[in-house]
C-alpha cells in the first residue's frame, strides 16, 4: 500500500478526524476500495440463471453500475460521523421562524414503528388494511375539528403540495360554477411564503400581490382595489408570516366571498391558534396543514412531511380520491367496515398512493397524546414564548411591527447593520457559535435584514433566557468580527457563490 498522503486515504479510512474537528469527512466514493463487499443475500433455492439468460442483449448493460465498494464497518462509521456534523432539534434550540422546530416526541416514533403499519402493501385490498383506513379516517376527523372544516384529503405529501391541491380545488369549484374562464387571478399578500405564488402559477392562475399596511397586515383598501369578479380567491397565512394575527380577517373573508372568490388558508402557522380559533370560523374555504410543523412530524433534514387539505362542506365533492370512509350498514352510518370512496367530482389523485402514511400516523399519535386540552396548551406556550422573547429583545433589535405577536415574530438587524455593519446573516452565524440554530433570515421579504424567530412551545423559559442572552451578546459584536463566524462548527462560513459559479452537483462532476 502506498503511504497515505494528507488528503483522506482512499478505501475505508475510518478515523473520526472529522468529529475531532480537522479534515473533511471523505465521501463514500473515497472510502471505496475495489472488491470490498457488505451486501449479502438470503438463500432462496431459486435456479441461478445468468444475466444473459434473463435479459435481452439489447437491454443488458455491459458493465455493472458503479455504486461504491465499502465495508459495512466503514459505511457505519461514515454515516455516524456525518451525523456528528449535523445540528438537530435533539441537540439544541432551533428557533427557525415559520418552520416550527418543536421537540418531536419519541413516543411518536415508536408508535409508528410497528410491522402492522410499516409492512402493509399500499395496494392491498381493504379487507387487509382496515387498521390503516381507520387510522387515516380518525386523523381526518381530528384535523377537521381542529380547522373547523367538513372533509379533508390526506394525500398531499407536504405543504406546497397541499397548496397546489387547494388551488386545483378552487379551480374545479369555479369551473363547475361555469366561471372557469373568467377567474384568472389569485391574491397573495407581499409577506407570503414563496410556495404560495409558485403554487398559484402551477394552479394556472396569475398572482396579484396585496401590500401589507403599516401594521403588517393585509391593507384593506389595497385589497378592495384588487378585488373583482376575475378573482378566483386569496391565499392567506393567519397568523401571517410576520407572526401577526390578521385582525380584519372577517371583513376580508366577506369581501372576497362577495366577489365570488374563495379563501385559502396556509396552515404553516397553525401552531399559534390550536383550540383558540379555527380557519373555518374565520371564513376560510380551504386549509392546508403542515403536519411536520404543527403536529411534530420530524423534519428529517428537509422532509418527508405531510400537507393534508381540509375544506368546507361545499367543496368536499371535489377532494382527491380515494378517501377511506366507513360503510353505512343499515340506517345509521359509520359502523361498518372501511372502504375506499371516490368523491363524485374529484379533482383526482395528488399522490401515488395514500400520502406519506407513516408521517400521517406519526402526527396522529402526537394529536392523541396531546388531546384537545394539550393542543390548546401547545398554542398558549408557543405564543407566550414568542412574546416573552420579543419583549426581551426589543431594546436590542429593531422590531418593525412591535406589538403582541402570535407564535413567532420578526426582528431586524437593520439598526445593527447601520451602526456596526452587523447583518442578519452575521447574527445567524454567531448564534451557531453560541450553540443555537439561527432564526430564519431575510424572510419575509417585506422586512429588511429580517430575523424571523419562532421559539416554539417546547423550549423552556430557561432556554429562552439563554437564547435571549446570546442574541443580546451578539448584538454588541462588530460586523468585522462576526464575519468570521461560525468558528466552532465542523466547517467555517461556506462559499455559496462559488458553489453556484463552479457547479459541482455530483462526485463524478468534480474537476480532477
Amino acid at each position, binding site marked *: 500500500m502506498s503511504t497515505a498522503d494528507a488528503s483522506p486515504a482512499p478505501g475505508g479510512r475510518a478515523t473520526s478526524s472529522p468529529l475531532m474537528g480537522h479534515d473533511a469527512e471523505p465521501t463514500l466514493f473515497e472510502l471505496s476500495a475495489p472488491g470490498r463487499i*457488505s451486501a449479502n443475500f438470503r438463500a432462496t433455492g431459486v435456479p441461478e440463471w445468468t444475466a444473459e439468460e434473463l435479459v435481452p442483449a439489447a437491454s443488458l448493460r455491459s458493465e455493472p453500475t458503479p455504486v461504491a465498494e465499502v465495508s459495512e464497518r466503514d459505511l457505519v462509521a461514515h454515516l455516524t460521523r456525518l451525523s456528528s456534523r449535523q445540528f438537530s432539534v435533539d441537540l439544541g434550540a432551533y428557533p427557525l421562524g415559520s418552520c416550527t422546530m418543536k421537540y418531536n416526541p419519541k413516543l411518536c416514533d415508536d408508535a409508528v414503528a410497528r410491522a402492522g403499519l410499516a409492512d*402493509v402493501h399500499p395496494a392491498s385490498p381493504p379487507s387487509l388494511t382496515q387498521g390503516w383506513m381507520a387510522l387515516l379516517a380518525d386523523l381526518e376527523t381530528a384535523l377537521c375539528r381542529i380547522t373547523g372544516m367538513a372533509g379533508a384529503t390526506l394525500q398531499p405529501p407536504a405543504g406546497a403540495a397541499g397548496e397546489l391541491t387547494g388551488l386545483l380545488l378552487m379551480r374545479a369549484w369555479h369551473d363547475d360554477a361555469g366561471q372557469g374562464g373568467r377567474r384568472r387571478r389569485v391574491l397573495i399578500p407581499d409577506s407570503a411564503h414563496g410556495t404560495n405564488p409558485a403554487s398559484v402559477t402551477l394552479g394556472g392562475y396569475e398572482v396579484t400581490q396585496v401590500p401589507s399596511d403599516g401594521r403588517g397586515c393585509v391593507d384593506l383598501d389595497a385589497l378592495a382595489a384588487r378585488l373583482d369578479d376575475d378573482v378566483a380567491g386569496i391565499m392567506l397565512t393567519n397568523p401571517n408570516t410576520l407572526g401577526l394575527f390578521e385582525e380584519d380577517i372577517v371583513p376580508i373573508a366577506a369581501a372576497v366571498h362577495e366577489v365570488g372568490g374563495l379563501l385559502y388558508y396556509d396552515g404553516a402557522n397553525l401552531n399559534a391558534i390550536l383550540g383558540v380559533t379555527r380557519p373555518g370560523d374565520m371564513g376560510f374555504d380551504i386549509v392546508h396543514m403542515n403536519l411536520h410543523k404543527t403536529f411534530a412530524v420530524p423534519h428529517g433534514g428537509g422532509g418527508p412531511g405531510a400537507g393534508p387539505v381540509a375544506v368546507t362542506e361545499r367543496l368536499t365533492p371535489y377532494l382527491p380520491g380515494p378517501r377511506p370512509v366507513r360503510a353505512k350498514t343499515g340506517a345509521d352510518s359509520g359502523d361498518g367496515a372501511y372502504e375506499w370512496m371516490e368523491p363524485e367530482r374529484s379533482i383526482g389523485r395528488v399522490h401515488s398512493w395514500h400520502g406519506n402514511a407513516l408521517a400521517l400516523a406519526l402526527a396522529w399519535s402526537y394529536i392523541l397524546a396531546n388531546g384537545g386540552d394539550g393542543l390548546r396548551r401547545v398554542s398558549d406556550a408557543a405564543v407566550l414564548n414568542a412574546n416573552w422573547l420579543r419583549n426581551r429583545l426589543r431594546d436590542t433589535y429593531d422590531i418593525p411591527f412591535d406589538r403582541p405577536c402570535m407564535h413567532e415574530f420578526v426582528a431586524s438587524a437593520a439598526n445593527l447593520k447601520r451602526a456596526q455593519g452587523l447583518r442578519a446573516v452575521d447574527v445567524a452565524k454567531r448564534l451557531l457559535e453560541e450553540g443555537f440554530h439561527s432564526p430564519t433570515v431575510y424572510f419575509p421579504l417585506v422586512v429588511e435584514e429580517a430575523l424571523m424567530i419562532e421559539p416554539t412551545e417546547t423550549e423552556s423559559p430557561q432556554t429562552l433566557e439563554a437564547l435571549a442572552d446570546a442574541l443580546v451578546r451578539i448584538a454588541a459584536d462588530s460586523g468585522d468580527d462576526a464575519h468570521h463566524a461560525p468558528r466552532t462548527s465542523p466547517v467555517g462560513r461556506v462559499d455559496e457563490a462559488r458553489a453556484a459559479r463552479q457547479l459541482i452537483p455530483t462526485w463524478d462532476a468534480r474537476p480532477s
Partner: protein
Amino acid sequence: MAHFVPHTDAEVAEMLGALGLSCLDELFDAVPAALRLAGGLDMEPGLAEADVAGRFDAYAAANRPVGHDLVCFAGAGAYDHDIPAVVNRLAFRSEFVTAYTPYQPEVAQGVLQALFEYQTLVCRLFGTDVANASLYDGASACVEAVNLAVAATGRHEVWVSRGVHPQWRQVVATMAVGTGHRIVDVALDDGLTAWPVEGQPGAILVQNPNYLGCLEDLAGAAALARRLGALLLVAADPVSAGLLRSPGSVGADVVVGEGQPFGAPLSFGGPYLGLFACRREHVRRLPGRLVGETVDTEGRRAYVTTLRTREQDIRREKASSNVCTNQTLMAVAFLVHLGWLGTPGLRELALRCARGTRYCREALLGIEGVEPAAAAPVLREFAVRTAVAADVVVDRMAEEGFLAGVALGDEYGGGLLVAVTEKRTRAEIDAYAAALEKVVR
C-alpha cells in the same frame, strides 16, 4: 397525558407578568371575540404514552402486514425488499431525523454531504449529469419532468405511455388541469408502448420496465423523440439499474423514478422517494433542491444547497417548481441501503429479482387457466390473466396466506400483476403456485 410543554404554572405566571398580562387568554386579544372557540376543541383529552401505544397496537392488529403469514407477491411500484439493519440504525439517527432543511450549511454538513452522495448515486444509476435532492414520490417526479419538458420545449402536448404506472398518470392528469398541458394517452400493444409516428409533443414519457413489467424499447423511443423534437422522459426502476442499460446512456433527457426499493418499507404507500435526474443543460430548470460542493473560508471542502434562484422562496411565481419540503430522510435511507449493496450487490439484487420472476412466471404459466398478459420480455414483474377475476383471486389467495399481486384495471383488460423480489424463496414460490392453482379453478 403526555407532557411536551415544559412550563410550570409559576413560570407561566412569571412570563405573563413580564408582559404585563394577567392570563393566557390575553395573549390572544388580537383574535376577534367572535372567532374565539368556546369550550375548546371537541376532542378527547390527551393520552399517556402507554395508552397511545395501546391505540396503535389496535390499529396495527387490524391490518395484515406482509410477512410469514402473508407472503408478498405484490409490487406495482411498491416492492417488498430486504432492508439491511444498517439503514434504520444510521439513516434514522436523530441528527438526520430532527434537522430542518440545511439552511445553515456550517451546521448541516451531515445532511448536505449525504444528499451530495445520494445525488451522485442517482446519476450513476440513471446515467445522467445532475439529480436533485429528492421529490415526493414517483408520481410527483413524473409531474415535474413533464413541467420541465414543456418549459424547455415550449410545447404543451405530452405523450404518456400507458405503460407508466396508472396512479402516476392520474397525478400527471390532475396537475395538468392547472398547468394546462395536454396529456395524450398512448396505448400498449402486447405489453409495449405503440407510439404514434407523427405529432408535435414537447415530450414523451415512458416507463421501463413498464407497469406490466415489460422491457420497453428505449432506444426506439429516444429516436422518436429526437425526430419529433421532443424530450424523452423515462420513469425507471432503480433496482433494474443493476442489469439494464441506463436510460441516460440510451438518450433520455430526464429520468425519474420511485426510490422506495432502497431504504423504504412498504409503509402503506409513504413516505417514499421521488427520484429526479436530467442532463446538465436542464439544470436551471431542475425542480427542488440541489446540493453542490464548495469550500469554506479556510478552503476546506464543504457542501451547500445551490442554484437557489430556481426555487420558490426566491423566484416565487416564476420558480421552476413549488416544492419546498421534500423527502430528504428517505434519500439518506436510499444512500445507506444502496451504499450497503454496493456495486456487486446492486447487480446481484437485480439478478435475484429477475431469477425469481422467471421461476415464478414459468410456474404460473404452467397452471391451466393462467395465461400471459403480454409476450414481451420482463425483468422483475409480470402480468397474467386468469378465468377468475383478479380481485377475487387476490381475496382468495389472502386466505391462503399470500398477497397474490395487484389486480390490473380495465385499461389493461384486467389481469394480475405479480412481482417477485430477492426475498422470495423457491419454496414460497412453489407454495404460491400451488395455492393459485386451487384458486383459479
